[in-house]
């Protein structure tokens, strides 16, 4: 506290990063650190809750009683989807704004106030949930009702986050005016900017829904349950789009730091980010496709035209990110055949492996399943089955969380100036976590295909008036879900232990101390070239990215197959209309 106060009084201090040459101001860096640390604490709460949830959904274990199961499920959703991810994204904004642009943070007091608000909101919400006063799950659908403080806590958290996005916009203005960089802002900052714009739209939806809900919980007004669902998902899905914009920006960042990945075409990549901004809110309709309050025209228009342009954006990044890596690798000399660039990539660098796994899991599993199940009619065989959490664990966890973990391995030496603890484990961690999430997701998806419900304490339906017999395969998938979940939890705990030990007890990192390279990713010891000019570039543009083209065509084939297979399955159903 004393040092914060001193810094607020004494004015900004800064240092020059020995690796990147950027000017890093004290407030920006410290706010990044505190937000990142709190993010990891919330991740830990989410992981503990995950253990309770998955060990209960594995019927053979059935760990928790009903009331605790739903409470842990609420805790898990809130701490993972809201607190961990958004605190981490605040850190990303501090990096992509003031630090990447070598700029001072204007109005640091606002940053500290915002952090305090977010912290308070998070503590209030978690307290309400742990006390059993908000057993309403993350979506809190009325007429289910939580204690008023629950809604107030979320509002405080959202206000804090809004302040940080405002500070980010202000930094962009200041950086331009004070000419701390020349030209346009780098692509990573541009991506973060689109994430911040989407965050404002998201948080405004949040205000529109949570303020009336708070008033309703105090008895001052009524709430229509269908209207709540519609507006809430304007907050709920849009928040996932913030995550997508943020993790795609991190993919580009890590590509640069690990292999000198280049931006193949700034226009294409930036346009793809802009498509995200233009079309997010409409995509929320895919949560409401089998709801009674809206008609088919609304559903088809919103889930499709808009979402598919956002899908186009994702498919574009799905090409440009690997293409940028391939081109960067080719410029470094890995030009043999179509795939030397991939085989010789630094798979032992957790910053690279985490990023690569994130791209593949998000694209192949998350993207393909998501677009398919978000089709108006296909949703009939999907809604509220376990297929839905199977899908979103591959996007948010295999995609966003894994990308955040990957970037942590660079943030620890670069910002916290510490060598990463347990380096051997760190190199394995993205693989452990990624594999666990893939097994978990696929297991949930298969159970959902067999009709197993989500958000359900007991699928043996003990004491229900009628018996339900699932296909025997369901039991197998419950076991694989449990094992995949345990593996992911192990990977998550490894990440937490590595991060916490590094931050508080890690060996200091100095660029000159090269005798012992452990604990520092190779991209930091020798940062790959970030700019190339001349004949080698012309040659690289001639060759292009043949390896990436093959990979995306494989992806495309998988997409087409999965999509039409689901229409086929739908066609076997009762006629319904």
């Amino acid at each position: 506290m004393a040092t914060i106060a001193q810094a607020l009084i004494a004015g900004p201090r800064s240092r020059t990063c020995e690796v990147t040459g950027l000017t890093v101001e004290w407030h920006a860096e410290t706010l990044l650190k505190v937000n990142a640390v709190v993010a990891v604490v919330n991740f830990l709460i989410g992981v503990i809750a995950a253990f309770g949830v998955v060990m209960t959904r594995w019927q053979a274990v059935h760990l928790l009683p009903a009331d605790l199961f739903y409470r842990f499920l609420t805790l898990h959703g809130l701490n993972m989807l809201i607190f961990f991810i958004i605190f981490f994204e605040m850190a990303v904004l501090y990096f992509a704004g003031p630090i990447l642009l070598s700029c001072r943070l204007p109005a640091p007091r606002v940053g500290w106030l915002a952090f305090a608000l977010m912290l308070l909101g998070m503590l209030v919400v978690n307290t309400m949930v742990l006390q059993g006063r908000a057993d309403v799950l993350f979506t809190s659908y009325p007429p289910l009702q939580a204690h008023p403080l629950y809604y107030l806590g979320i509002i405080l958290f959202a206000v804090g986050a809004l302040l940080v996005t405002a500070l980010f916009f202000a930094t962009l203005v200041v950086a331009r005016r004070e000419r701390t960089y020349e030209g346009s802002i780098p692509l990573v900052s541009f991506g973060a900017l689109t994430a911040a714009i989407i965050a404002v739209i998201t948080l405004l939806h949040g205000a529109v829904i949570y303020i009336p809900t708070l008033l309703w919980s105090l008895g001052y007004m009524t709430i229509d349950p269908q209207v709540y669902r519609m507006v809430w998902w304007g907050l709920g899905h849009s928040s996932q789009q913030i995550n997508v914009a943020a993790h795609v920006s991190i993919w580009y960042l890590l590509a640069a730091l690990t292999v000198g990945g280049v931006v193949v075409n700034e226009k294409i990549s930036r346009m793809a980010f802009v498509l995200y901004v233009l079309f997010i809110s409409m995509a929320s309709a895919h949560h409401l496709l089998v709801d009674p309050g809206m008609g088919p025209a609304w559903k088809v228009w919103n889930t499709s035209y808009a979402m598919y342009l956002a899908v186009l954006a994702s498919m574009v990044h799905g090409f440009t990110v690997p293409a940028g890596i391939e081109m960067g690798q080719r410029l470094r000399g890995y030009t043999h055949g179509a795939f030397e660039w991939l085989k010789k990539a630094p798979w032992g660098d957790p910053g690279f492996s985490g990023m690569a796994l994130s791209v593949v899991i998000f694209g192949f599993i998350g993207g393909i399943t998501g677009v398919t199940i978000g089709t108006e009619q296909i949703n009939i065989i999907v809604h509220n089955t376990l297929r839905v959490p199977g899908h979103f664990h591959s996007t948010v966890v295999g995609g966003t969380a894994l990308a955040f973990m990957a970037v942590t391995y660079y943030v620890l030496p670069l910002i916290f100036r510490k060598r990463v603890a347990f380096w051997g484990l760190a190199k394995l961690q993205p693989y452990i976590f990624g594999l666990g999430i893939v097994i978990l997701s696929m297991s949930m998806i298969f159970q959902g295909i067999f009709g197993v419900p989500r958000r359900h304490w007991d699928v043996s339906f003990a004491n229900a008036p009628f018996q339900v017999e699932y296909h025997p395969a369901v039991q197998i998938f419950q076991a694989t879900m449990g094992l995949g979940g345990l593996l992911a939890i192990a990977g998550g705990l490894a990440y937490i232990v590595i991060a916490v030990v590094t931050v508080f007890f890690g060996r200091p990192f100095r660029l000159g101390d090269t005798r012992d390279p452990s604990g520092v990713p190779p991209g930091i010891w020798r940062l790959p070239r970030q700019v190339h000019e001349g004949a080698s570039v012309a040659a690289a543009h001639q060759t292009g990215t043949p390896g990436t083209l093959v990979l995306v065509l494989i992806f495309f084939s998988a997409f087409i197959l999965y999509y039409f297979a689901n229409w086929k399955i739908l066609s076997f159903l009762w006629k319904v209309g």
Partner: protein
Amino acid sequence: MDLVEAHSAIVAPRGIWWRPAGKQEKIWVTLAFIWCMVLFAMMPIWHLKGGQNPSGVRAKVAPADYFARVEKFVGDYKVGEDGGMPVVAPPPGSEIYLLGQMWRWYPVLKLKEGAHYTLHLSSLDINHGFSLYPVNLNFQIVPGYDYGLKIVPNKAGDFRIVCNEFCGINHHMMVGRVIVE
């Protein structure tokens, strides 16, 4: 000034970076765009040609009024009982009514294979999830809203209705039954 250069995503690009795309990018963006249009077109096509759409005949209804409609329906077509729950066998072509409430589906339905019905769904209290097993037909049940789905059972069987939207502590006990002969 258009330099022949390449830079990473952390570098502030100088000069004019608004450049035409390379051939491979153009191929991919074109393919992706065509695919997106296919994705869009499939939905209206299925409305015209396909047999499964979540359109329904939709209306707002007060829970008390919906309950009265369900009771009238049960009174008109009841044929028996199953564990204390009325079994209702409506004639083909009729409007049939099912309600969800904490924590039961009411009543038990007895339908004919190949017959057309309009299945009305609503909740008396909070959100529930209608999930017909093992067909895997899933719809959201919202209090205050009547979702009238035109259905045609295409196979005889003894089906279950599982609730798949969290509805409180006995959510797992909310199981209903649909018999198709």
